[in-house]
């Protein structure tokens, strides 16, 4: 009964019982893939009525429009990557605002020597980091005192100190980090990963973006599917809301029981089919169909994933009962449920002034939650299969930026910043690349955004030159025509 397509409406969502996490994933495996092989098959399964109405004859090739609609309907079913890989999930913590690398992960003693003096060959006066660095862990990597808890975990981290990007403007660079393009609308990293790997839990979106209120610069460009099919679009969730019902608005229907709602939704799909016979916007209409199906399932499943009251008090305390603590704990609950890609916005790093006071506040917001997250993943044997990324969109200059204020900060710098990797397939306890004496520019083993993207895809089992999508007559890829895998950071 369970797998009989016609019974779909009855069992879908209603009989799901929260089990232990792995069982959860197993039991809920391929569902959408059953349904979305082709639109025609979908109709045959869901719409008995349509057959009787003789609609099948209406669904000729012409209706199907482009061939894509008939043959390549997108699916969220899990797929094995082409190459062996450890990482199966990604959690990308976006430190938006451009954290100062020389105050966090990239110590520069020379700045102390030159403090207040001009740096040769550079405009402005050097500014020593107000923070102490200390060797941590067995690896002895130096970490700033602003990250006491993460410092303890440094043997699990790869610190890439030679990142660089193209344009030091927040919105452009933020979207660049997430899509690999500064100019055009392009699919986000999470969408590419979802396209390549599908997702393990068919009752949850495979790509979820968590934000603590507000919207980041670039808004939905940062989790968009762009020309990839719409179901690879990230679902943005405002975690600041006080309860589950507010986190995902309208998550529950207060009028119609689920079985009846299922019947109603089947009718909606049939109405849509009749309506769209003549229209071309297959991709968007298809995405809508999938969005409705996902919405239906989320009603029962998503509320649980976002309900932190189901966590023991000790766990809540370990993460910290703060906005970022909540976000990281939700991220863990999502990873546990098989969500493929979680983006976590943890911004506020644009410290043009008052860096001494304000940077530690930001660091503190994420230090404990991220450390707790890593420890928690380890305890649950999820660390080795989860790639954790922390970093911003660019770095900051080694010189003072006063910007009308006596308490200095640092200005934007596209030539150097630090990104930290951990978990699945990453070589822990290592530093890769280096900036110059002052941290002004990456000089050794430079890593461009495209290189980082290529590396992330490699960690997930993809050759970045081969994960392509044909659009408008051309094969597109995340790394465009660039990108070199940074093999030394792979374990």
């Amino acid at each position, binding site marked *: 009964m369970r797998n009989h397509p016609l019974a779909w409406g009855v069992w879908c969502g209603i009989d799901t019982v929260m089990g232990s996490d792995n069982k959860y994933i197993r039991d809920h495996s391929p569902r959408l893939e059953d349904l979305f092989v082709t639109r025609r098959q979908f109709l045959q399964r869901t719409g008995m*009525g349509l057959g009787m109405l003789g*609609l099948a004859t209406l669904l000729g090739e*012409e209706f199907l*429009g*482009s061939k894509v609609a008939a043959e390549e309907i997108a699916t969220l079913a899990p797929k094995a990557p082409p190459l062996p890989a450890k990482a199966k999930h990604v959690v990308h913590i976006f430190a938006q605002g451009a954290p100062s690398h020389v105050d966090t992960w990239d110590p520069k003693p020379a700045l102390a020597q030159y403090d207040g003096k001009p740096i040769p060959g550079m*405009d*402005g006066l050097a500014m020593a980091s107000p923070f102490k660095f200390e060797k941590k862990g067995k690896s002895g990597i130096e970490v700033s005192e602003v990250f006491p808890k993460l410092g303890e975990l440094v043997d699990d981290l790869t610190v890439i100190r030679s990142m660089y990007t193209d344009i030091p403007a927040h919105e452009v660079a933020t979207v660049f980090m997430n899509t690999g393009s500064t100019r055009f609308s392009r699919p986000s990293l999470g969408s590419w990963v979802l396209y390549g790997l599908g997702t393990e839990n068919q009752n949850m*979106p495979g790509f979820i973006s968590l934000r603590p*209120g507000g919207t980041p*610069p670039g*808004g*939905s*460009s940062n989790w*968009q*599917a762009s020309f990839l099919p*719409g179901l690879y*679009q990230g*679902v*943005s969730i*405002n975690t600041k*809301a*006080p*309860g589950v*019902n*507010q986190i995902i*608005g*309208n*998550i*529950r*229907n*207060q*009028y*119609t*029981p689920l*079985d*009846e709602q299922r*019947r*109603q939704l089947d*009718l909606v799909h049939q*109405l849509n089919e*009749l*309506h769209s016979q*003549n*229209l*071309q916007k297959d991709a*968007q*209409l298809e995405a*809508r169909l999938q*969005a*409705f199906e*996902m*919405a239906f399932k989320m*009603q029962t499943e998503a509320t649980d994933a976002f*309900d932190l*009251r189901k966590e023991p008090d000790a766990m809540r305390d370990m993460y910290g009962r703060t906005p970022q603590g909540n976000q990281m704990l939700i991220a863990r609950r999502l990873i546990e449920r098989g969500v493929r890609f979680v983006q976590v916005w943890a911004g506020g790093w644009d410290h043009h002034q008052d860096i001494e006071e304000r940077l530690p506040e930001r660091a503190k917001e994420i230090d404990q939650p991220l450390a707790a997250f890593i420890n928690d993943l380890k305890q649950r044997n999820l660390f080795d299969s989860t790639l954790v990324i922390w970093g911003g969109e660019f770095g900051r200059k080694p010189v003072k930026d006063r910007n*009308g204020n006596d308490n200095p900060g640092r*200005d*934007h710098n596209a030539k150097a910043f630090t990104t930290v990797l951990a978990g699945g397939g990453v070589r822990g306890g290592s530093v890769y690349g280096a900036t110059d004496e002052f941290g002004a520019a990456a000089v050794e083993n430079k890593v461009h955004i495209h290189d980082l993207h290529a590396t992330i895809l490699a960690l997930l089992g993809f050759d970045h030159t081969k994960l392509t999508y044909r659009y*408008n007559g051309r094969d597109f890829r995340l790394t465009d025509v*660039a990108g070199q895998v940074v093999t030394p950071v792979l374990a």
Partner: protein
Amino acid sequence: MNKPPFILPGVLRQLCPALGFLAAIVRSLGAEPTPSQLQFFENRIRPVLVQNCYKCHSDQSEKVKGGLWLDTRDGLLKGGDTGPAIVSGDPEHSLLIRAVRYTDPDLQMPPKGPQLPDSVVADLVSWVKMGAPDPRTATVAQKARTESSKSHWAWQPLRKPSPPAVQDSGWARTPVDKFVLAKLEEKGLKPNPPADKRTLIRRATFDLIGLPPTPAEVEAFLKDESPDAFEKVVDRLLASPHYGERWGRHWLDVARYSDTKGQVRRQREDPTYPFAWTYRDYVIRSFNEDKPYNLFIIEQLAADKLPASTRNPTNLCALGFLTVGDRFMEMQNDIINDRIDVVTKGFLGLTVTCARCHDHKFDPIPTKDYYSLFGVFSSCAEPKFEPVIVKNLGGPDYSDYYKKRMDLEQEKDTLEAKLRELRRKGDREALRNTLRDLRQNQTRVSQLELTHPAAPPRAMVLEDLRRPHDSPVLIRGDAGNKGPVVPRQFLEVLSGGYRPPFTNGSGRLDLAWAIVSKQNPITPRVLVNRVWQHHFGEGFVSTPDDFGMRAEQPSHPELLDYLAARFEEDGWSIKKLHRLIMLSSVYQESSANNPRYAQIDPENRLLWRANIRRLEFEALRDSLLAIGGDLDPTMYGRPVDIESEPFSTRRTIYGLVDRSDIADVLVNFDFANPDLPTGKRHDTTVPQQALFLMNSPLVIEQAKRLVALPEFQACPDEESRIDFLYQRIYQRPPRPEEIKLGSEFVASAPESPTTSNNDAAVRPISNEISADRPMRFAQLGPQGRKGRGVMRKRAPLKSWEEYAHALLQANEASFVN
């Protein structure tokens, strides 16, 4: 490196052994190229570059590809978007060499072949090895600047192109059509046949007023067989007061409108703008009055500077354009930056704020131009008390307001006195408490001003400082690092050679005149593009806020110019522009697909069909309310709560916009980010949109209302009920198969609706706000809005209600085609 290079042609072969050595010298000493090297360049390299590369990579290119200039030495070394073209002395790491060798599938030049002959490739390799001696000294920056200011289309003088000749002159009803058709015919394509009348009136009505036509309006249009039937519809819609609510909202996207200030220092400041709505109302009014766009611009920049005869207190609200932006925790330079941003992106399609810290990387906008504008806005400030814009104050409501306000003032005075006292004493604890009380006092003032019906509306004006001043360039944007002072004046690139310093106070009025000046061709282009975009789903220029060098070429440059020129001739009338566009055949095409055409032009840039467009959230929500008969057509006034129950049933444009905490339902439906001028919203499809249609009480209540309507109840049979719902929701009769679907759905509904409404799902979740807490108007703003998402127990739907709800969820209700 010291090994002789491989095969070198003819005369040069004898030089070979020396070349590597020479290259090393050239590099190490930066020496001048020798005459023989230059001869090699002139004979063997320059001709190759000219013949094979200059078409796309030089001054001669129509558009320089990949940001790469190969007609200067500087260009080669600096390279383009993918990095330096050559590494002097190192051919193996030179992209140029990699490209001409054709070994990298992603990088092959010339791109469409034929490959350069091996001998030529070998020449290039040798040349790079010898250090790429090259006498061409102009720098790319110079060239980029010159090239762009000379030839970039967007700032070329506006002329009015003649409509081209076309074959199918029957279809081409207007000059607009000729431009479109000529491009289609060039590609051998034909435009779609016209849409049927029902589709057309629905399209026009949503486009102009953001609501569906009523069944009666559709009937009247169907019956009207006169040749100008559609023209009458367009004119009726343009005259509707709902027009301003629709098009005003488009403008508010550009104006980054919000009712709040963004992040504030919570201890010191209330985040509300109690009077932002007076700017919103000004915008709606202006569109309804068809205020000439040039005057609309002038008022928004300098309504306070206009001669008394044209100045009226309501128009002062126009200055909200400058003042409703983010307050950036009162960082003045950021506030000014935001104002420059909204003015230049909004009116000029230019990203001038890129030049805050360095010369614009792509467009000819030097940093000093940015600080010319900076001087204008740093010569302005908000007054302590915003001017009241109504004349007659009085009445019992007003007395009530007045008393409350005076009480708060008194409280404030008391608190301030106390503060002074405590400061003297140095009692920190009490000081903190008093500061908190003061802040709360301020919040209550804001709330009173925002919500009290008799609080006199005020204009969010900006005023000139008594002593306006020019600004120095702030080097790298650093306020502590002042460069030369620059005069307040307009952007050089748009000045057409005439660029007098601004002398009238701050210069806001001068700036406004410069923006609307005939010398400046870009203003009408940008506006025409915005209007076109909202009619077709995509503008000629796909980046409506950026017409700079990085924007894609316009799809129909001549048509854009024609419309811009007509727009000026027509007295900058936006309504006339709508007419010109909508009465053209191209607007009236059907949206039917054509698989072959879809292969040739998948994005429909050539407009062979009408685009299918999803309704924006405002139009979707408003139309659902209109369909249910629940829409409150009251216009103007203080913002309302559209987020929580009881929902306001006013049009969505009147909903409160809080930039520091935008309602999730707005975010989920791609609402414009109020922190940045937004000419084009995103278009995403996410499950939360479905959840809104599936579960929001606002939507479901409309389904219930539909079924409760007397007209529905009076329908004698199933078929007429279904017909009624289709006419009302989709403005068309149902097809037989749709009637069948509907009947079956209703017939197969459970006998009596189950009440197993999953109690667990309805019970309010603990630590959420209690269900019966009324959402009061006074809770608007960041402190309020806590009642969102409260769960209630509701009666299950009857089968017809459920059916109507399904119709509201179906795509047809969310799309215009």
